[in-house]
């Protein structure tokens, strides 16, 4: 049952990423040139609704569907890792035109070269794991 719910949520997300065109390399390029509101509208809507959802859950102590207390974990405090890591991610996001969600959507949509991006994203993650202790965090 739970497995089915993960799969269905994933399918919903995959369809949304494709139909919203957030998985399009062109939309990412256009966004970074500030030549369309589209991507800002998507992220803005998601964040405004997301803030409301989180606030309502916290304020009314809403329990999960399985009756559990919902806990939001704060992110670890740091400046350098978020800025430096963020810049490296941004460089790749703009170049490949895909972040870790859309790259899987595009694989399903049949764009074979995206498999190169996925493979090297896994390798990039591996390199981070090797170098982690030598990097400023």
């Amino acid at each position: 049952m739970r497995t089915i719910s993960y799969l269905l949520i994933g399918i919903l997300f995959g369809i949304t990423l494709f139909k919203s065109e957030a998985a399009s390399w062109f939309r990412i390029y256009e966004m970074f040139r500030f030549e369309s509101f589209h991507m800002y509208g998507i992220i803005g809507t998601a964040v405004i609704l997301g803030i409301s959802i989180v606030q309502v859950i916290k304020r009314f102590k809403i329990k999960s569907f399985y009756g559990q207390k919902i806990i939001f974990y704060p992110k670890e405090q740091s400046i350098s890792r978020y800025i430096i890591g963020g810049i490296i991610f941004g460089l790749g996001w703009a170049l490949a035109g895909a972040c870790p969600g859309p790259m899987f959507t595009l694989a399903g949509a049949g764009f074979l070269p995206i498999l190169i991006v996925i493979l090297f994203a896994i390798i990039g993650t591996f390199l981070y794991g090797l170098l982690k202790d030598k990097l400023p965090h």
Partner: protein
Amino acid sequence: MNWIFEPWPWYTSGAMIALVMFLLIMIDKTFGMSSNLRTLCTICGADKTADFFKFDWKAQRWNLIVVLGVIIGGFIASFFLTNDPSVTINPKTVERLNELGFQSAGDAYLPTELFGLSAMYNFKSVLILAVGGILVGFGARYAGGCTSGHAISGLSNLQVPSLLAVIGFFLGGLFMIHILFPLIF
């Protein structure tokens, strides 16, 4: 129901992404895609090389099933829910892309110069995709999350670290598009 075959407007798309995050929260999970790349490393045996990959990957299996769903969702959307996949971007953007050598701008979902089948036999295209992938994978783990984990989940929970990460995403993206693209293409 014709709207479903058209590109979705930003407000529908944004609301659907918020719904996905809400559903995951309500089943005691969190919304974040890039952590799956770490799980895949561990499954491939990276835990034997670096401590960062020593964790119980089975506890993350649920997220891999979400990824499987994302792949299936991409397949459904592309083959059954789309009549015309071309992305109507700003004509000014099309013009600029044409100057850079992307003739498919405005007529395709992805640039055929990078994502067409023939691109796989082009060394430069493969190199661009590989470097892009490495930067995304490395940067996402360094920053502790990607667009879903920071820009959506983190900002929704008003996390200052996520705001810093999103500022980083944009600094990197702007530098790539405005400074490096004219040198690469």
